[in-house]
């Protein structure tokens, strides 16, 4: 059992506040992705869990044990580094066995474990090679195997796929997910790539400016973003936003049309809809087409609605030309509302 609990963790570098009061519980065997743009604090949080960085405030618990004063090696963790950090002066075998050697395990045990994880990562034939003789993808496999060989409670990964080319990344993504699920370890995975996050995570913690904005399952984060930041960060293209003004109880005016919305009247809200959640119809938002991008699977149309940029993903069979006026009907159950003052979602 290795549940991770992060309690009120804050980190300051001099005057710069990198993390603000982070609270997060990661369940045993959960695959948690920390997602955010660079500088949002996700790597700092990972390094605090790891022990390479010390929190200014707060506590870190792993498997019911407080670990924030322990050295990394005493936390039951292993880590995969962004640049792999595969030691160039050691063979692949000795790299994978490095942690086991440090634990002074007997030779036959080291051999057994190294061969097992090498098999898991399909690098048995590379064990006698040196890092300089490996491709980026192979080094990545060695780095993962080295972490797995420790049989840790928790595996921490810092953008492990960011240095691979796109095709290899897709392949490793699926493979890594499979291997980690099988190893039954808790995983914390840092990335700025939302596709990686969506495809691998059990849960995603979206981070922004040193705070966790939302921690939820990928589909929840996608469908019900807790804040405008999440809505605009996740999804490619991101969610569309339009100004909405109150038109009586539960009625809102959006781009000249009255739609149903949250109960109550008063200050303006943001109306939000994902580009793929719209259909051309007789009744709907009037959109002047600016740019048409045929993407094969579908058609990405950038338009102008009520003076705001607005994107729609339409069927690729549709014929749309710039300058045309489209009438787009949002799917009512996919419409979301945000408070422009707090930027948070409104039910």
């Amino acid at each position, binding site marked *: 059992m290795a549940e991770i609990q992060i309690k009120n963790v804050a980190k300051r570098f001099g005057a710069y506040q990198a993390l603000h009061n982070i609270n997060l519980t990661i369940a045993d065997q959960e695959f948690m992705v920390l997602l955010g743009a660079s500088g949002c604090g996700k790597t700092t949080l990972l390094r605090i869990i*790891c*022990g*390479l960085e010390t929190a200014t405030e707060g506590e870190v618990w792993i498997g019911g044990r407080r670990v924030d004063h322990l*050295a*990394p*090696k005493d936390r039951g*963790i*292993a*880590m995969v*580094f*962004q*640049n792999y*950090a595969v*030691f*160039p*002066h*050691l063979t692949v075998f000795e790299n994978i066995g*490095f*942690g086991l050697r*440090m*634990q002074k395990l007997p030779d036959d045990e080291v051999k057994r474990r190294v061969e097992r994880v090498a098999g898991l990562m399909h690098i048995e034939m590379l064990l006698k*090679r*040196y*890092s*300089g*003789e490996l491709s980026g993808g192979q080094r990545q496999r060695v780095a993962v195997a*080295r972490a797995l060989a*420790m049989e840790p409670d928790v595996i921490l990964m810092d953008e492990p796929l960011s240095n691979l080319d796109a095709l290899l990344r897709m392949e490793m993504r699926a493979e890594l997910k499979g291997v980690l699920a099988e190893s039954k370890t808790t995983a914390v995975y840092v990335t700025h790539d939302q596709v990686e996050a969506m495809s691998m995570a059990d849960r995603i913690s979206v981070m922004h400016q040193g705070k966790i904005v939302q921690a939820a399952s990928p589909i929840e984060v996608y469908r019900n973003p807790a804040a405008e930041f999440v809505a605009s960060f996740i999804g490619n293209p991101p969610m569309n936003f339009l100004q909405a003004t109150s038109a009586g109880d539960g009625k809102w005016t959006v781009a000249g049309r009255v739609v149903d919305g949250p109960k109550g009247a008063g200050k303006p809200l943001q109306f939000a809809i994902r580009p793929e959640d719209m259909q051309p119809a007789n009744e709907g938002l009037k959109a002047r087409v600016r740019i048409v991008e045929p993407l094969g699977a579908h058609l990405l149309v950038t338009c102008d609605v009520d003076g705001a940029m607005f994107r729609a993903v339409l069927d690729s069979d549709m014929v749309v030309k710039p300058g045309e006026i489209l009438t787009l009907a949002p799917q009512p159950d996919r419409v979301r509302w945000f408070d422009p003052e707090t930027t948070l979602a409104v039910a």
Partner: protein
Amino acid sequence: MNARLLPYVLILPVTLFLCLFFLYPFVLVAKQAFTTGAGATLDNFREVVSYWKFPISLRNTLLLAVAVVPIQLALSLLMATMVTRMEKGRDMVLYIWTIPLGISDLAAGLIWLAIFEQSGFLNSMLHGVGIVDKPVNLLTFQNPGIVFVAIMLAEIWRATAIMLVILVAGIGLIPKEYYEAAEVFGASPWKRFLRITLPMLRPSLQTALVLRVIMAFEVFAVVAALGGTLFPVLMGETYAYQFDLLNSGAAAAMALIILAISIAATLVILRALRVPKRATI
């Protein structure tokens, strides 16, 4: 300009310079060493090797190298590790530690002579605190141990910095991630030094040791200042052949012997610290 030819054209001036001022004199010295008035011969070598002072000066030179270089290696590694970990004032400390590099070896010898001679600082201090009644002459034939230690200290003080700067540069090239990975996988600071720093520092260690060992075999001015004739070394004997005995042939033979020892030591160091080609990044 042909791109394949350009590198050779660019190194041409320095090659010519070296041929003119290094290779040519070297050939002359070699010729001098292997000839006497009677033609090609090994007589010069026979003469210098059979002289009674030769084994002593050879032994002293080697002994000094064996005593000084390992201490300097350990010290420079320690100092380099310390400097690397500093966040503030790093450059300042490095400058201060490398001051001896800017001082000629004779001056360094004289500084330490000022400490150890009869009216020197050490005697004044010992006398001042009452350990000795009157200043004693430490650097005499009766105290060969003290002479040796004084020379050792001066050499360590003078020439550790050259290794230090090479090692500091080398340590700076080791990516931080390797240390973090080693730490996460359970290596203590000492293990990180042994398993990461030392192996990855091999190219710098090679350079530092080769330079330092060659300097050790050429030791002269410091010994002359502190030991005079009490502590004969190979280079001192070479000087004596050339300028006291006016025997250029013998001096040339001595120079070649020192060169041979240096080359042998260099080969041993390069071999011992070689990085297998496959294990480089």
